[in-house]
């Protein structure tokens, strides 16, 4: 439905619009064509994003043509956030889960297979919003990037470290505007965390604790034996995408795939991307030196009920070495003694920064008296127009979004490294090891079998 609507909207846009569908040999370059050309050029020369930005993107006065892939649940929420733009196509393998979004955007073309949608709608799509289960993030994102589409992808960026690395590189090369779905990064709170720490409010930070007790998706269980029929509203083979074949079961979807290793990335992959964003930003973290993990028991099927992952980061810039500990499944660090009785130290999710001169819970200095006495740190970071808006602005030539893949890719790699440590937990214990990691080369250096988890194996017919 390369729509009349779109054509109508573009009226009055002048030359570019008029020749939009024309071959770029005999017509003016369309902006999309320009992006391609620029991408090709940029593949071999390093051109800063901002140079490309203004020219290659949709002008601010125009609306983007957006396609949604994985549009139930969180995907529907994301589409709603970008519904100021044109939602031109929708894709989901689960017709029942997608029904709400289909209804909300009756003019959008409907697809089941994102490959088909991107091929058929190539000319009509500027950008895609991806909110499928984790195991299909990378294949979809990569195809979209290769077609020069801007990408908003839900967290975690991908299902394996290798996928993240490749997607991040591809996005950089293609010069597309990207944003990961960790919307908390756009908050005032995240900026305050940075500004307090950069203003030395708690001194050098050597220890951070980060935790989440959500979501309560099934974990610590085995694969079901029953093989109920695939419901008519679901394309199970497409749902599996690149993952190994297995029979359909309602325990996987919707949403509950998060706990299954073949599809999800556990609580760490899900919520870690939110929780770690201010930590990575404030403390300018890169790759860790090593990671260690323990849990309530890992099996090859599902993530543990409860886990703790510890990362050691080397000193960087002016920051000393840092130990970052992740807790999930209801676990959390001990209550800091500076936190007055009656003040909440909840297990839902939070970050506790331990500095040489003080502590900070979220962006609140402890104790309360210290917080009051200190006031607010100097404002050095620009505030966000909103997480989705950042991306829309970037698509239209504005500055890169706060969680663009150059920022969120490396962070998500570190998060997924934690899952590798969880997989390896028993081996680490038996062998008396921590997992030493060579970030730039994506390699665990002291336990070769851990490297099998760096990359997910794809089924025949799927590739990145």
């Amino acid at each position, binding site marked *: 439905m390369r729509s009349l609507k779109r054509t109508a909207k573009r009226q009055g846009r002048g030359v570019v619009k008029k020749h939009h569908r024309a071959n770029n040999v005999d017509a003016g370059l369309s902006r999309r064509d320009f992006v391609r050309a620029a991408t090709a050029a940029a593949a071999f020369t390093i051109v800063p994003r901002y140079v490309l930005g203004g020219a290659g993107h949709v002008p601010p006065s125009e609306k983007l043509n957006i396609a949604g892939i994985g549009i139930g649940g969180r995907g529907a929420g994301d589409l709603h956030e970008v519904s100021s733009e044109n939602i031109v196509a929708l894709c989901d393998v689960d017709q029942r889960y997608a029904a709400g979004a289909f209804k909300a955007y009756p003019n959008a073309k409907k697809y089941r297979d994102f490959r088909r949608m991107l091929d058929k709608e190539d000319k009509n799509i500027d950008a895609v919003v991806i909110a499928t289960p984790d195991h299909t993030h990378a294949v979809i994102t990569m195809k979209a990037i290769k077609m020069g589409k801007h990408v908003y992808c839900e967290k975690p960026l991908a299902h394996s470290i290798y996928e993240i690395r490749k997607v991040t590189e591809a996005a950089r090369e293609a010069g597309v505007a990207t944003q990961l779905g960790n919307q908390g990064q756009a908050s005032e709170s995240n900026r305050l965390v940075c500004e307090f720490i950069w203003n030395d409010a708690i001194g050098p930070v050597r220890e951070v604790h980060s935790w989440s007790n959500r979501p*309560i998706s099934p974990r*610590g269980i085995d694969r079901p034996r029953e093989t109920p029929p695939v419901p008519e509203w679901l394309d199970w083979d497409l749902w599996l995408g690149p993952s190994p074949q297995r029979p359909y079961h309602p325990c996987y979807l919707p949403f509950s795939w998060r706990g299954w290793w073949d599809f999800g990335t556990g609580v760490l992959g899900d919520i870690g991307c939110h929780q770690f964003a201010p930590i990575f930003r404030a403390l300018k973290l890169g790759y860790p030196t090593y990671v*260690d993990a*323990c*849990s*309530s*028991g*890992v*099996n090859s099927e599902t993530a*543990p*009920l*409860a886990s*703790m992952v*510890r990362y050691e980061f080397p000193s960087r810039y002016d920051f000393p070495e840092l*130990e970052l*500990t992740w*807790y999930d*499944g*209801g*676990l*959390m660090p*001990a*209550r800091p*003694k500076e936190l007055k*009785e*009656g*003040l*909440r*130290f*909840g*297990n839902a999710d939070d970050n506790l920064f331990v500095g040489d001169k003080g502590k900070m819970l979220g962006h609140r200095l402890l104790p309360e008296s210290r917080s009051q006495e200190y006031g607010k740190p100097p404002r050095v970071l620009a505030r966000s127009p909103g997480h989705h808006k950042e991306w829309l602005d970037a698509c239209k030539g504005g500055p890169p979004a706060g969680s663009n893949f150059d920022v969120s890719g490396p962070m998500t790699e570190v998060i997924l490294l934690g899952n590798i440590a969880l997989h390896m*937990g*028993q081996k680490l*214990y*038996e*062998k*008396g*090891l*921590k997992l030493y990691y060579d970030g730039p080369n994506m390699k665990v250096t*002291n336990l070769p079998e851990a490297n099998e988890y760096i990359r997910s194996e794809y089924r025949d017919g799927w590739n990145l």
Partner: protein
Amino acid sequence: MKNRKKPDDEQNKKMSRRDFMGAAAAATAFTIVPRSVLGGRGNIAPSEKVNIAGIGVGGQGGGDIRALSSQNIVALCDVDWRHAGGTFKRHPNAKKYKDFRIMLDEEDKNIDAVIVATPDHVHAVASMAAIKRGKHVYCEKPLTHSVYEARMIAKAAREHKVATQMGNQGQAGEERRLMSEYIWAGAIGQVREVHVWTDRPLQGINGVYWPQGVDRPKETPPVREGLDWDLWLGPAPERPYHPAYAPFKWRGWWDFGTGALGDIGCHSIDPIWRALKLKCPVSVEASCTLVNNETYPVASMVTYHFGARGDMAPVKMTWYDGGLRPPRPDELEEGQQFGTNGTLFVGDKGKMFGYTILPESLRKDFGKPPKVLPRSPGHHQEWIDACKGGKPAGSNFDHAGPLAEAVLLGNVALRPEIKEKLTNKSLLWDGPGFKFTNMPEANKYLHTEYREGWSL
């Protein structure tokens, strides 16, 4: 139930040694007489054998009896005669009972001492019944099921001057003494942080010794042959029999067991308790996986704070179970296991993992600490010696009671009702006053409610 002879009745009779002990106990109830004074005279002569009765004689109870088989095993009591079969067979001359109350009544004259190795929920009632009769008591860890019971049992044992020992046999080991001696010699400086962990209830990667984090079974299978279910329940609330409880898997259930913490805490916190001269904690808090009112959580962490003791600094002790562990110390060399169970002391000058000083350079520089603690003749032997007038056993209830109290306080913090409220505070504990000072509703969990017909 027979009354014990009163001291004044005894003046006209030739006193049996057992009668003498009763007299000594009564006399000392109101005056403080050191055990050593009583020892040699009041107790069983070293040349004699102790007449022992076992209460709960399958499983660990069978092991305890084996360890004490140099003595006379005169009576055996178990509510599950199938589970007790092996021990019964090994001691064909011992009289067999199902109800410890009947056994203690009928065998009063024949018994010097009892071994209690029932499930946790029966420890206190069985131990108390024995103590009140002046019997020496060896009770498996944890000493009791509730904090209150631990307090009362220790008090009663003190008053009755019986020889006691809790079943945390590791306390008798050489390495435990080294741990204290290293700390006391200042090998790692002031200790402000200790970590202690077990992988239980996990058994290996995916197995479990007993399930936690599960709900009460709905099926009501017939009670298995040989088991007196009502007696097995003892003071615990009535519920239908299910193999999910007996034998052994009772450990995971709030009504019967004390979880991984109760099972292993008394073993592994013991050396910390000694080395750091801990008294009752000042606060306790916990976090864990989803927990219900039936079973302990799958995995938990409990943090205790202890105040300063003499010149020892306040210390924070963190417990981990269900596969959780503290951070592997950087000083531990690659390839060295960190242990499914372990303790890690963090001092100002170094760390101690088990009794290994870290880093290795510090261990080598420091050498061996001065030997200031006497070595043990063995955990069970300590108790036998104490029964015969020797010095108190290493884990006598004056030591084991407060230790068990602290362990069980952690379980109070894990109760669903309490854990929810720990978002706003830590539980502040007034040990001498026996109450939480900032959360009155937690105090009810210091007690186990007994069924009608049972009392301490």
